[in-house]
């Protein structure tokens, strides 16, 4: 199994390089010349050409690409922002931390509420609690994150004046964004946990646990839940993808200076290096997260472990 994961980690290197290559090339296809945008409207042709040289845009595509790849992957230097002229490698650090904080909070929120809803539904199957939990889950799936964010601001910041509508600071600034990003996760976790709990509750070892005279609480939390959580791990992958995408939009709504806001500002300013860096780093984080999900899945499920251990290894996503 170790060999399998070592192979997966090594595979990430060419994939990340290809992502970088793809993004770099796409950036060059964007209509609109960044040098033209950066010089003033009445700049002379000479000023414009100088700007192009300054940004390195006058060199042939392949030279630019080669320089970009060696700088990024050998020196971990993402270049300078066209707009602010500051080093992206330095700027990106705190932004990455904020995006990760938001992501982790959202994931924690989604897990906790999702598990609670799922268990409540599964232990009251076909009763009103079940219907209520599943309706909440369906509403969560149906609402666009950005719309939910606006509604939350309306309710908690404007009407109740409990939480700040935007900016950064203490934990209270992260509550509404985390809920907006995590809502979709809550809903998918709740649905998955309900169905896998129902599978598990009917199984022999749960009947055994009951007949041993354990309380219902012990049966559910000690015996049924750990096993019901195993299939849930697989949907974390999809949730993470959603979360990284969602954070781009949510950060702009709540003005959180994370990677999402950096990316959108970069796009609006034709700031190629910023956009490249954000996309590449978000993809690397995403790949690592997916790998960890697969690893966790293999660790907890002995059947999968056995399959990886056997010689015939097949990649599955």
């Amino acid at each position, binding site marked *: 199994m170790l060999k399998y994961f070592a192979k997966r980690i090594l595979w990430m290197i060419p*994939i990340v390089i290809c*992502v970088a290559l793809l993004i770099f090339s796409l950036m060059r296809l964007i209509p609109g010349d960044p040098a033209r945008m950066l010089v003033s409207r009445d700049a002379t042709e000479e000023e414009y050409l100088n700007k192009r040289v300054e940004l390195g845009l006058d060199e042939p595509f392949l030279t630019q690409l080669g320089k970009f790849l060696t700088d990024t992957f050998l020196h971990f230097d993402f270049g300078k922002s066209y707009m602010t002229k500051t080093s992206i490698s330095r700027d990106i650090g705190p932004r990455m931390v904020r995006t990760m904080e938001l992501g982790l909070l959202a994931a924690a929120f989604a897990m906790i509420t999702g598990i609670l809803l799922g268990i409540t539904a599964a232990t009251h199957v076909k009763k009103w609690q079940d219907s209520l939990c599943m309706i909440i889950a369906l*509403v969560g799936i149906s609402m666009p994150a*950005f719309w939910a964010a606006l509604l939350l601001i309306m309710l908690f910041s404007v009407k109740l004046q409990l939480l700040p509508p935007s900016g950064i600071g203490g934990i209270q600034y992260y509550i509404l964004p985390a809920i907006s990003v995590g809502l979709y996760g809550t809903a998918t976790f709740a649905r998955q946990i309900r169905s896998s709990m129902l599978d598990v509750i009917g199984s022999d070892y749960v009947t055994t646990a009951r007949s041993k005279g354990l309380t219902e609480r012990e049966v559910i939390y000690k015996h049924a839940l750990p096993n019901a959580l195993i299939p849930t791990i697989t949907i974390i992958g999809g949730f993470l993808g959603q979360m990284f995408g969602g954070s781009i*939009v949510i950060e702009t709504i709540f003005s959180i200076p994370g990677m999402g806001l950096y990316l959108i500002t970069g796009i609006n300013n034709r700031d190629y290096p910023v956009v490249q860096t954000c996309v590449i780093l978000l993809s690397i984080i995403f790949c690592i997260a997916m790998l960890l999900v697969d690893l966790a899945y293999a660790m907890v499920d002995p059947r999968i472990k056995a399959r990886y251990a056997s010689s015939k290894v097949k990649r599955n996503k």
Partner: protein
Amino acid sequence: MSANEEMIRRLAKDRLAMLGLLIFVAEIIVAVFAPLIAPSDPFAMDFTSMLSAPSSAHLMGCDEMGRDIFSRIIYGTRYSLGLGISVVVVSTIAGTIIGAIVGYFGGVADAVIMRIMDVFQSIPSLLQSVVISVVLGTGFFNTLLALSIHRTVGSARLLRGSIMGMRHMEYLEAADALNCSKLRTILKHVLPNSFTPMIVYATAGIASAIMSASTLSFIGLGIIAPTPEWGAMISSSRNYFIEYPHTVLFPGLAIAITVFALSVLGDGLRDALDPKLKN
């Protein structure tokens, strides 16, 4: 075909899925007959009723340009629903072609295309759509393309998976033994048998495509104002929503109801097609 009848019978018993189907069909009708249903021109500006609250004259009020929100939502079905359905149709066709080729022939084509798809799948989907739509620009067809690429990879993988699973089935060996051409085998035997997972994936896909499309439009990519796409409507009224919540409430509800309908329909289809749940 009795298997299909059985499936339809089971689907018909699922009341929530039927509600989803009803809403979906109703919205398609609304999209087709939008000019007949909408009370006023969705682009007509009326500065005397700017940001006016819902009333009998304007069922859902007016936006910041004094345009009738109800009419805009009616016309919006054409863009939002139209985009969602087109994305799924385009990506399913493209994905089927790619998936059928790699799944059936295997070998070098499979290895190369799968590695390319790995690269695409390691970029989070919305991020990918954002980058592509920045490159292509705004508008219906550019957004269609930006959203289809990620889904094409997904459906190609799905089809490849199910073809891999049936490659050594006896009926394919039989087709081979009868000297059936490869093209004919794929069209007549392979595709019909991989149809069910594709249908479920496609139904859920319309919902997620609508969601992604509205998100793109919200951040100013995708389809932009004054076109009445629902996400674009929310985006353009965003600065007024605290004083005039109706401007973002109704377009958002339109998205939520549509996604809800398609999600429950997708769930219903999946359950109806799952032989394990037969009772």
